[in-house]
């Protein structure tokens, strides 16, 4: 086995012209200077089209009466590889389980989306959203109310029968 090394053939100094090269360079930069094309995305005004499977900030789905859909089964804190979900479940008079405490630490979260995949009632979702800047660190621990307030579109789950989402 041999590695082949390709070395560029450089022209002789007698045949290369600095001035000609400089002038052709200036012609090139001038062409770019007057051309109106721009590769810049004017971010706050122009938004990027996020992929339908973009995994970003979480949101909690709610019932029509405003209760969270979560049944506090405990699957998401179990499956979470970053251990960022804190869940304390409770039970009401009719025997319905509901979360008393449901907190996600968005700093610890690695946005793998396994909480959404594992959820049996499609309550917790990762969303197509990334603009979650805050002024203090403690604002990054999203509690239940905050998760229920989020209204960005949720992430499309990967479908094994349609791996490219076509």
């Amino acid at each position, binding site marked *: 086995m041999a*590695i082949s090394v390709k070395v560029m053939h*450089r022209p002789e100094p007698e045949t*290369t012209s*600095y001035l000609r090269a400089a002038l052709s*360079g*200036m012609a090139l*930069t001038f062409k770019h200077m007057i051309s109106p094309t721009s590769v810049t995305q004017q971010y706050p005004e122009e938004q990027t089209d996020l992929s339908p499977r973009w995994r970003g900030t979480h949101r909690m789905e709610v019932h029509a009466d405003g209760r969270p859909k979560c049944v506090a089964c405990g699957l998401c804190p179990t499956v979470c590889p970053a251990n960022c979900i804190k869940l304390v479940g409770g039970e009401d008079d009719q025997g319905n389980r509901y979360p008393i405490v449901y907190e996600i630490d968005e700093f610890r979260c690695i946005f793998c989306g396994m909480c959404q995949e594992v959820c049996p009632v499609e309550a917790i979702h990762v969303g197509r959203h990334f603009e979650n800047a805050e002024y203090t660190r403690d604002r990054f621990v999203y509690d239940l109310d905050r998760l229920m307030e989020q209204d960005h579109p949720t992430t499309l789950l990967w479908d094994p029968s349609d791996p490219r989402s076509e």
Partner: protein
Amino acid sequence: MDFVPIHGELDLGFVAIPWALLAMTAKTTGIFTVLMLVVAYTTLAERKVSAWIQDRHGPNRVGPFGLLQPIADGIKNFLKEETLPATASRAFFVLAPILVLFPSLVTFAVIPIAAPLPTPVGVVDMIVADVPIGILYILAFSSLAVYGVVLGGWASNNKYAFLGGLRASAQMVSYEVALGLSLITVLMLSGNVTLTEIIWQQQQLGMWYAFPLSLAFLLFVISAFAETNRLPFDMPEAESELVTGYHTEYSAMKFSAFMISEFGHMVTASALMATLFLGGWDIPFWTGDNMFWHQGQLISGFAADGSTILATPAIWKTLLTLAAFAVKTGFFLVLYIWIRWTLPRFRYDQVMALGWKVMLPTSLAYVMLMAGTILTLDEIGMAFGFGYGLALTAVSLACTIGFVFYLDRGRIITGAAALHAQKVEIKTISQPAPAGD
């Protein structure tokens, strides 16, 4: 109407102020303000043009098209913390930005910006100080700027800053020589060092000095790039090697002073190039703007019998010539920026070799040749006019072509592709076969 220089006094009852003093104050204030504005907007132009060259937008957040960006930058620099390195030489550290800022602003005083302006109290020259030693004044002050740079680099007590200062001193001193020598030809052709008279002589010659003295023009432009420390000669700053060179340790307004002086130098050098070689405020192919003080009279030329033709200054002529001057200066400013974002930096030894081994001998030889040519033309009795200019143009063109030919193709400077001019082939390196395969 008779046009005389500005005279008389403004009588306020308790004190009488000469109109000339008022005009001088107005011109000084006006030119300083405009110069600072141009400097500020050159920084914006630099960022905008670099962005366009790189297919970006450039600053566009502050004001329409980012037009308030220089003001935002200024406010930011005022509000930033002034740092003083613990080991710095305090007095010189503070002195350096002042020393570097002063010459770059003061040199503009002798550059005429427009044709004389007629007012009810006399004709005002559109120049702050029409000193008889115009060019010498500019050379004297522009070489003072190197002290600020060296002092800043030394006083910072920082190796990078010190290296930047050293490089700046070596480079500016080297190219000062070629700069001065390329100016000699201009002085020989004009027979004068006053910038107003140099413009007048270019109007009389019927062509700008860029043509009859084309090689001097080329050498002057190259030297001016080196003098202002702009790419491809920005050795003193050399971001990739020396952090930012001599102003590494400076922050806030002191840093801003260095930046203002750099851009101020750029503007002054552009205005100087426009004045010396592109006719200053002269509008081409039009003799209506030719104006010069000759024996107390404002004349626009000489008739065939040697009598003078009086000029008729007008406000619109002043404005038009001011626009011509602005266009020419702007052209050089854009050229500065354009070249900066096109060419890579020279190596330090290349800069020194170009300065001492090429520019200096070439400019010396050119001075001799031009002196001989001018002497010959005078001896054969050719009148100072268009034909005179054409003869010089022919000689200069031959010199310029020879100089460019000599400089190029591996003789002095080569293209980047030729730096590693070794013959190489595609070769195969045999590798030991992996064990157990």
